[in-house]
């Protein structure tokens, strides 16, 4: 079972087409193993990316360097998944 401890989901607000181009470049960097939940298309729409823990520093540096604003949508993905798993276990117990 793959775990996602420390993975974060960032909501990025690009302010220009140039920043969208930069985010599209980010999308091509396969070694970062980014999971784009909302792909970069135009500045009016947010971009959501699940960033594996090991790539967080690089992605934050990339965004900072290009002055691209972002916020943290999910602090720890695994924390939410653990809650979900607990819900499912307790539901199964209740059904039995």
């Amino acid at each position, binding site marked *: 079972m793959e775990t996602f401890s420390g993975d974060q989901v960032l909501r990025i607000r690009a302010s220009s087409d140039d920043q969208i181009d930069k985010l599209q470049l980010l999308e091509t960097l396969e070694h970062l193993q980014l999971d784009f*939940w*909302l792909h970069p298309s135009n500045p009016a729409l947010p971009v959501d990316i699940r960033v594996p823990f090991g790539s967080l520093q690089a992605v934050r540096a990339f965004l900072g360097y290009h002055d691209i604003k972002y916020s943290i949508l999910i602090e720890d*993905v695994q924390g939410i998944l653990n809650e979900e798993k607990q*819900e*499912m276990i307790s539901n199964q117990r209740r059904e039995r």
Partner: protein
Amino acid sequence: SNSNFNYGAYHSLESIYTAMDDLAAEYHGLVSKLQIGESYEKRPLYVLKFSTGGPDRPAIWLDAGIHAREWVTQATALWTAQKIASEYGTDPSITSLLDTMDIFLLVVTNPDGYVYSHTKNRMWRKTRSKAAGSFCVGVDPNRNWDAGFGGPGSSDQRCSDSYRGPHANSEVEVKSIVDFIKNHGNIKAFLTIHSYSQLLMYPYGYKCTEPADYRELDTVGKAAANALTSLHGTSFKVGTICSTIYQASGGSIDWSYDFGIKYSFAFELRDTGRYGFLLPADQIIPTAEETWLGLKSIMEHVRDHPY
């Protein structure tokens, strides 16, 4: 009995398939379960057919969960199935709809991915098809339809989460739906349920131009979104795929629209601005309830505007 089923929880594929069997048994004569194909890993693709009449009736197509990890969509589809079945004969809208048209509902569009998301990787989005010579598995089944296939907003990289596949309809899950709809020949609406950021979209995604029926689709979409919002205040944005989310080629509603199914819409269900598709289970029923109002609004329009 289906009345014991907990619709407010996430379930395994087996549990969902059993619930579908129970529904078909409980509402025998109204609901039947059809197999329209099987997945890459040989799991059956089951459609619930709601019908009160004979052959050659116009029909509405509904599918959910093409992206495996969007569990609230499969859960919403199952709740919707129960709603339709249980309220035929009592709810005037459902009764009138089913007296006029059939409904086909594919509850789990991507069963291999769904099982994989339950057992190995909760973030799994694609199918589980394998290609010789590649370490990476799976194709994004919503980039695999024959609609601007290979264009912007889809990837040719096998490891990408939006990998489009080697050719249109390469995924058996997609081809099974395409074959079913072509063979049926009288599908009047194609509604697909996803979950992210509360959107109700119509074509196009593979190009950023408005469809020929733009005005009507926009009006129908906005009416549906208003109906949906009326229950819990959840706000939906309505528009073309390209204008509301991003340019994406090879998507299902672009194919269905270009195939001639005018009322082609994609729902992206609620996430309340957080968590994306990772919705807590206690939001399943509110999500399903509000989505039903949107679906019903569109289906009523389809019923009242034959073409």
